[in-house]
């Protein structure tokens, strides 16, 4: 254990920190000591630090305002380095640990001498919304190049991390009967009531430990300290099967009992104590029937000049530092209060040895505390002390000045109703203003919700406990024995004082965004009278604290400025998250490599080991080409693979194609309705090419389907659309034709498939299946055979995408690798060459076969030259809508083939077609566009392409120009012809 360093503001005793565990940490590279259980704020305050950061707009020096998540000022950066750096931690929520390094933010130059503080000097010229009114002199370029960069540089608080986050995060599905939000005395009591009734409960508490206000208020419960009583409650809840989760923020309420919560698992631990394989944070997606809002209340300040000076803080914060951490925030303290509650803090400070003066805004107040001076009927008029509070002026019934080092403001309480209104539309009700309590209270709740504790407006601990009992009862809980509370905390309703008389400039409401009392008035003056307009115009409530301490005061002042009631003005909309949460926590495991799963073919490992470069399609990794010695570019590989296939024998993996097994007496009728062409006459043992439309009449997908038996078909789809086709078939069957006696299932993963293509394909096939008749008669074009390979079913389809004599053979995926290797072995005789998608692309373009580049969801059957494939004798999906006028428009672009005029030219995909090389090139003169390109076609010994063009057939034999402005305005001469370059009569595939 290291030596004790002095902590000037730390009391000798008190608080629930662990004084046996001193902790060394740094702030702005200075070394400090605190204790285990300290927050950064409490530890620095103990060390006498007052200045924590700079405000957003005016760069005013700021200290600590609150003691919890409401803190607007004290935001710090944790760790350093591009990946580790973590900005905008609230010092009040950050638990210190050995070796913690923290840095102040948002200053140019040292924290104490920020040059941007000039903004404060000229703040009178920077009122709310000033930027809307200026900076347009010089036009767009002046704004973009001159003014905006200045604004941008000044904006933002912390510095962003600049590399991937090294931590890991997890999502947890958490189920419970009831979620209790808030682990204060009210939440815990309600939880116990429910747990005792047999409900499974989860209590989430945002702070470092359960207990809420009970940890610092100094009350006793059946004689136990708050902390001890809280431990006792937690133990009982856990004994009854409940869970308590500290450091867990419930950030949002969603539909049907779904709640989001984030648990911080690592941020409080020294790095050495973070267990490997565990997450920095866990995002709990909580599913619970009921919810209890036991979120407590957040104190608010009062608008007066200089109320942001370091040393001015909320009374509850000063009290928390004292009660929970044993830190006395000042020796000469002033409490400015609008209600009796401030006296509790005054008493506690006095007991801790501070000289305390109370400024009570009320003329007739009658709380008396030994040793505390009370000045009644006065308010804090101005606080002085740029880097730390020195003096406060008061005014009212009397006036004067007090030398003071801390000013604790008790301006009243805002129940933390945020979560109750995340789904207001569900109940069509918003938080309601109670003019007695001067607070917004939860709206009427539905039967699955309850509220407990100070969020309901209950003030004394006893009342909070009673409300907890009632909340438990509402949700089916059992009565619990409530403790006897011994309390020295006076409570009363507050007096209405949102800002002191005359407050304007430098009377801050939203401390982070520097929105002042004056800004609210200006907003009203300029017609921004709706509370939402005021928020947006002044940015009040839009900072990282989302106005937890400022919003209600702001709208109360707006009400006054516009002569309305506070209830009429209403609140702005509360939105998730309740407090900011890292984006990464919600992303959980699914990031970068694990963003989505990979789909792998059964021969993926083989392909990887054999030089394949992969291409993504529909989550699959498909070989694009196989690099062999001598291939310098991918095109070398693709052309080599093409030539080998065309000249002798190629083999490719088609396992990724979608495959659907369709069975039942109405299977053929089903296909008839899905495809444009007829299926009833397809003989068993035959395959047919089919085209599916969407219901809007445009082409959806294509593929071949085979008839394996009268009532049994086997469909293939494109890789990219496989999932979509399956869902489409399920939709049509279930929603439109539920009576069709058919059932089907995806067998994509069941079968591995390869294609043998090229003049030697038949010979190779014969060798693989020596007992089979694979002659042109035995297995003609579009013929299908089912047989056995080594005891496993094999299906052979004589179909061809490449335009060669070709067979696709499918075997079960488990044995596909073995089969593939066997094919390679027997094919060696013909130099069998594996080919990838790039070679396939060259061959199918030569053949004029379409893929997704052509079937892009905008083309009709006619457009791709397949208009003949329509049976007019039946209904099918898309038939009706394909009768619309646009489909028959002669101006529709249709498919055409292009050949580069010059052997070295490579046609550009996405290039636009024009009739002349001289322009004009604009949208009125463009004729069409290029969809698919073979950079080199062995057939044509140059580049070829598929394209769409108006009046396509008129262009056959003519010259066109492919223009691509995004390729340096390239203009290339091409010749148009039929897209079926290769073997247009299909002699090869039939041979």
């Amino acid at each position, binding site marked *: 254990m290291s030596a004790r360093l002095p902590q000037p503001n730390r009391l000798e005793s008190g608080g629930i920190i662990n004084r046996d565990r001193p902790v060394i940490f740094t702030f702005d590279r200075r070394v400090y000591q605190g204790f285990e259980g300290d927050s950064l704020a409490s530890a620095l305050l103990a060390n006498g630090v007052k200045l924590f950061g700079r405000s*957003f707009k005016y760069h005013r020096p700021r200290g600590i305002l609150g003691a919890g998540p409401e803190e607007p000022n004290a935001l710090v950066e944790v760790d350093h380095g591009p990946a580790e750096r973590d900005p*905008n931690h609230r010092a009040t929520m950050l638990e210190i640990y050995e070796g913690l390094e923290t840095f102040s933010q948002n200053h140019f130059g040292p924290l104490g001498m920020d040059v941007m503080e000039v903004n404060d000097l*000229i703040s*009178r*010229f920077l*009122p709310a919304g000033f*930027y*809307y*009114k200026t*900076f347009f002199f010089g036009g767009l370029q002046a*704004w973009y190049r001159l003014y905006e960069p200045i604004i941008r*540089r000044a*904006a*933002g*608080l*912390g510095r*962003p*991390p600049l*590399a991937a*986050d090294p931590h890991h995060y997890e999502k947890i599905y958490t189920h419970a009967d009831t979620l209790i939000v808030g682990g204060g005395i009210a939440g815990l009591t309600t939880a116990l009531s429910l747990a005792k009734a047999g409900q499974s409960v989860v209590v989430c508490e945002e702070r470092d430990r359960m207990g809420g206000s009970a940890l610092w208020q100094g009350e006793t419960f059946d004689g136990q300290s708050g902390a001890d009583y809280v431990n006792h409650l937690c133990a009982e809840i856990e004994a009854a099967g409940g869970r308590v989760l500290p450091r867990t923020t419930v950030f949002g309420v*969603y539909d049907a009992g779904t709640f989001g919560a984030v648990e911080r698992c690592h941020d409080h631990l020294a790095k050495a104590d973070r267990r490997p394989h565990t997450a920095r944070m866990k995002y709990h997606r909580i599913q619970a029937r009921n919810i209890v809002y036991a979120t407590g209340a957040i104190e608010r300040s009062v608008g007066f000049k200089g109320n942001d000076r370091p040393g001015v803080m909320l009374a509850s914060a000063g009290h928390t530092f004292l009660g929970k951490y044993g830190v006395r925030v000042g020796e000469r303290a002033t409490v400015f209060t609008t209600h009796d509650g401030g006296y509790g803090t005054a008493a506690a400070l006095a007991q801790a040895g501070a000289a305390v003066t109370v400024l009570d805004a009320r003329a007739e107040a009658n709380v008396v505390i030994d040793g505390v001076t009370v000045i009644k009927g006065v308010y804090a008029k101005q606080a002085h002390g740029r880097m730390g509070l020195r003096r406060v002026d008061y005014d009212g019934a009397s006036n004067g000045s007090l030398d003071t080092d801390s000013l604790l403001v008790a301006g009243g309480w805002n129940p933390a109703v945020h979560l109750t209104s995340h789904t207001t*539309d569900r109940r069509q009700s918003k938080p309601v203003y109670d003019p007695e309590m001067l607070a917004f209270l939860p709206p009427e709740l539905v039967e699955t919700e309850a509220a407990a504790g100070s969020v309901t407006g209950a003030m004394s601990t006893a009342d909070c406990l009673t409300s907890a009992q009632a909340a438990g009862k509402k949700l089916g809980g059992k009565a619990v024995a409530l403790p006897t509370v011994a309390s020295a905390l006076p409570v009363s309703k507050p007096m209405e004082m949102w800002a002191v008389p005359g407050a304007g400039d430098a009377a801050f409401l939203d401390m982070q965004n520097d929105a002042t009392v004056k800004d609210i008035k200006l907003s009203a003056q*300029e*017609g921004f009278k709706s509370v*939402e307009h005021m928020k947006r115009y002044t*940015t009040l409530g839009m*900072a990282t604290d989302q106005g937890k301490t400022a919003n209600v005061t702001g709208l109360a002042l707006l009400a006054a400025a516009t002569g309305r009631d506070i209830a009429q003005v209403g609140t702005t909309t509360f*939105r*998730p*998250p309740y407090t*900011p949460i*890292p*984006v*990464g926590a919600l*992303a*959980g495991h699914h*990031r*970068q*490599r694990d963003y*989505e799963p990979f789909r792998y073919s059964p021969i993926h490992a083989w392909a990887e080991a054999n030089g394949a470069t992969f*291409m*993504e399609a529909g989550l699959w990794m498909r070989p694009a080409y196989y690099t062999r010695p001598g291939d310098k570019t991918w095109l070398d590989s693709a052309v080599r693979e093409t030539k080998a296939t065309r000249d002798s024998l190629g083999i490719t993996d088609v396992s990724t194609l979608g495959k659907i097994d369709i069975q039942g007496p109405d299977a053929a009728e089903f296909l008839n309705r899905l495809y444009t062409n007829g299926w009833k006459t397809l003989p068993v043992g035959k395959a047919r090419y089919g085209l599916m439309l969407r219901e*809007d*009449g*445009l082409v959806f997908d294509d593929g071949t389907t085979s008839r394996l038996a009268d009532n049994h078909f086997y469909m293939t789809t494109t890789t990219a659309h496989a999932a979509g086709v399956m869902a489409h078939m399920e939709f049509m069957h279930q929603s439109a034709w539920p009576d069709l006696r058919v059932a089907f299932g995806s067998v994509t993963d069941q079968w591995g498939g390869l294609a043998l293509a090229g003049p030697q394909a038949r010979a190779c096939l014969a060798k693989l299946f020596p007992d089979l008749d694979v002659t042109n008669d035995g297995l003609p074009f579009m013929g299908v055979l089912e047989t056995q390979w080594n005891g496993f079913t094999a299906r052979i389809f004589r179909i061809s995408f490449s335009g060669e004599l070709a067979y696709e053979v499918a075997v079960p995926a488990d044995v596909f690798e073995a089969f593939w290797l066997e094919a390679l072995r027997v094919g060696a005789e013909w130099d069998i060459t594996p080919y990838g998608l790039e070679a396939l692309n060259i061959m199918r373009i030569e053949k004029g076969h379409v893929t997704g*580049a052509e079937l892009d*969801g905008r083309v009709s059957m006619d457009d791709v030259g397949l208009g003949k494939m329509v049976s007019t004798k039946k209904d099918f999906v898309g038939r009706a*809508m394909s009768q619309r*006028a*646009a489909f028959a428009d002669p101006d529709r672009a249709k498919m055409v083939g292009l050949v580069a005029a010059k052997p070295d030219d490579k046609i550009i*995909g*996405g*290039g*636009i077609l024009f009739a002349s090389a001289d322009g004009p090139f*604009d*949208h009125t003169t463009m004729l069409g566009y290029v969809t*698919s390109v073979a950079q080199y076609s062995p057939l044509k010994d140059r580049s070829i392409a598929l394209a769409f063009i108006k009046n396509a057939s008129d262009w056959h034999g003519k010259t066109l120009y492919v223009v*691509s*402005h*995004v390729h340096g305005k390239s203009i290339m001469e091409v010749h148009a012809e039929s897209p079926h370059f290769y073997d247009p009569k299909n002699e090869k595939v039939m041979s």
Partner: protein
Amino acid sequence: MADRYGFWRLLREGLRGHTGWGPAWRDPAPKAEYDVIIIGGGGHGLATAYYLAKVHGITNVAVLEKGYLGGGNVGRNTTIVRSNYLHTGNELFYEKSLQLWEGLSADLDYNVMFSPRSIINCFHTDGQRDAEARRGNQMILHGADAVLLDKEGVRREAPLIDVDNPRFPIYGGLMQRRAGTARHDAVAWGFARGADQRGVDLIQNCEVTGIDIEDGRVTGVQTSRGPIRAKKVGMAVAGSTSRVGALAGLRLPIESHVLQAFVTEGIKPMLHNVITFGAGHFYISQSDKGGLVFGASLDGYNTYAQRGNLPLIEHVMEAGVSFVPAMSKVRLLRSWGGVMDMSPDGSPIIDKTPIDGLYLNAGWCYGGFKATPGSGWCFSHLIADKPTHHIEQLRLDRFKTGYVIDELGAGAQHNLH
């Protein structure tokens, strides 16, 4: 104009305690009758009123807004302004709109902070590259600008993008330099102030509850603040299109869906451009205040509630961290939703309706913010009986004729666009 803004004015007001600023717009009581009523005080409604007054001299106009001005989608969008469309029907219109953006602050005497910081649409395959090249070419042929970037180009422009993403590596991007962002609220307020200065009545908290029709001709509206007569009525109610259309007995080709948006805490600059991640439908930019503003796709179900649910939120965060890994630690500050008027082809409708004097402006899906000036311009021309060629194809009957404008090729399913 009396109440001009500018640097010197700000200085003068600063010296005299800002007492001289008048209201940005009046708060008039509705008159009994107007020449034109625009339903909807969103960006499009306000811009329409502004151009009716400014360009056509039609000033006896009221904009009726059920809530507060600019509280609809114009006040809750991710502020991307671009004209990178493929189809003529869209590109003619959106490029016109972009050109209006370029002079908008000066025109309005209001800084809408249009910031041409460029957009980059990232793609992941060669096929997608060709499709983006085609789009870029067509943009240029319509008078817009486009640059095709390769992988290194993307890395240079936006160094924090994970171009080497192991799951969906980025092959390149289509960049439009003139694209960018604008300050959403300022757009609504600037148009509102401009319209008000020219005599238009902006009437808030005034919900249209009925549309009066006699002999097939519109004669006025019923509102929560009483009946108001009008010669012409223009609907510009975005997510409420079906509800307001129903008041005139119209059934329209619109579904209402929620799109969520997100903003993080303010941080110092980390992203300059607007960038989109094709594989995750994710897009992001950084606001002038320093917040990362981002979103992705629709929740997918029909709704009129301005909020969404967790599954989509998780998806957005997953895509974001996969695309810009450094944003993992940045904290999400706020999330919200807006109700989109989704059309079956994802493109807008600016047209007359079958009812005389009733005009329709709808179908903006998630792309209508960038359309704001263009939409107001074109809609005002249509209402003033001077329709422009920019909206020639944005017709209501295109679903009957089949001349749909389907940028994604996704087909007639509203929530896919």
